């Protein structure tokens, strides 16, 4: 981990299918640090939920990552882990993938938003 990236410039991480990763890498967010750890994970057809889960946890634990983007279908596979992640940083963003349209009703944050809006509406 270079000192500079440690101090101010934080990274975005991607967990997604090959096309999503390639797209974002071309967008210029990819980085491999001195330990040869990448900040993206390509999910193949035979990747298990446990592997995704493990990778997600690794990204959360790294303190040079500020935003984690994850395809919604893979987010669904590790929904409990994402729901458990309540800290503001790193932020978990669920993004649509090429094959699967975005379903806002599944999004962890929006689910929380629904839960919050109702009791606050009831208040007073």
């Amino acid at each position: 981990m270079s000192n500079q990236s440690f101090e101010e410039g934080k990274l975005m991480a991607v967990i997604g299918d090959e096309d999503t990763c390639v797209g974002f890498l071309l967008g210029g967010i990819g980085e491999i640090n001195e330990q040869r750890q990448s900040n993206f994970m390509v999910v193949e057809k035979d990747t298990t939920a446990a592997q995704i889960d493990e990778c997600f946890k690794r990204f959360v634990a790294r303190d040079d990552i500020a935003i984690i983007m994850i395809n919604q279908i893979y987010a669904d596979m590790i929904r409990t882990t994402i729901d458990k992640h309540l800290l503001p940083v790193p932020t978990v963003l669920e993004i649509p993938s090429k094959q699967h349209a975005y379903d806002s009703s599944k999004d962890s944050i929006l689910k929380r938003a629904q839960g919050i809006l109702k009791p606050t509406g009831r208040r007073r």
Partner: protein
Amino acid sequence: MSGKDRLPIFPSRGAQMLMKARLAGAQKGHGLLKKKADALQMRFRMILGKIIETKTVMGDVMKEAAFSLAEAKFTSGDINQVVLQNVTKAQIKIRTKKDNVAGVTLPVFESYQDGGDTYELAGLARGGQQLAKLKKNYQSAVKLLVELASLQTSFVTLDEVIKITNRRVNAIEHVIIPRIDRTLAYIISELDELEREEFYRLKKIQDKKREARAKADAKKAELLQQGIDVREQANILDEGDDDVLF
């Protein structure tokens, strides 16, 4: 419950003043916290609206970006492996700034360009234009996502803070103020009790005195009847002396 749950304090005037001051403080704090909660709530709703809006925009942007990826693949063949293998340094990085809402610091992300394009030479043989477009699309997607991320962080932070503030408001409203009220009521009742006792004591003393005087008068009258006039007899304790100095 009522009358039981109160502050352990000795009922006195001083304590009453103290409690009154505390009550005023609690009410002031309650008002201020309520205002803070309202301000946060307002901001929160604004952010929520923006998040939902941005999420829908994100859907479109991502669709377009994915489409341009397909275009680029069509023209320049499979570039996936080349791209995945050639990762070195991040070109877009995130800077965090702080925003302040009613004393709550919200992290705001901001993306910035750091270093040159790693894939400058990708698509040199063919499909360069498509690739350039693809990069541009994904960069705008990244920008949008960064914006969304800061909204989401603010959302999570505010959510937490609002919960805490509401908890405090409710605690003051339903626990602290009633407790002080009860303490005040207790002090007042105790003070009243003391006052009544005092009053009763005074009355009693007056009664005793009156009784004693009546007795003395009766004795005097009796003596008078026996022929001894004690009315003009000076009491030794009565200093009936005028100034005899001159």
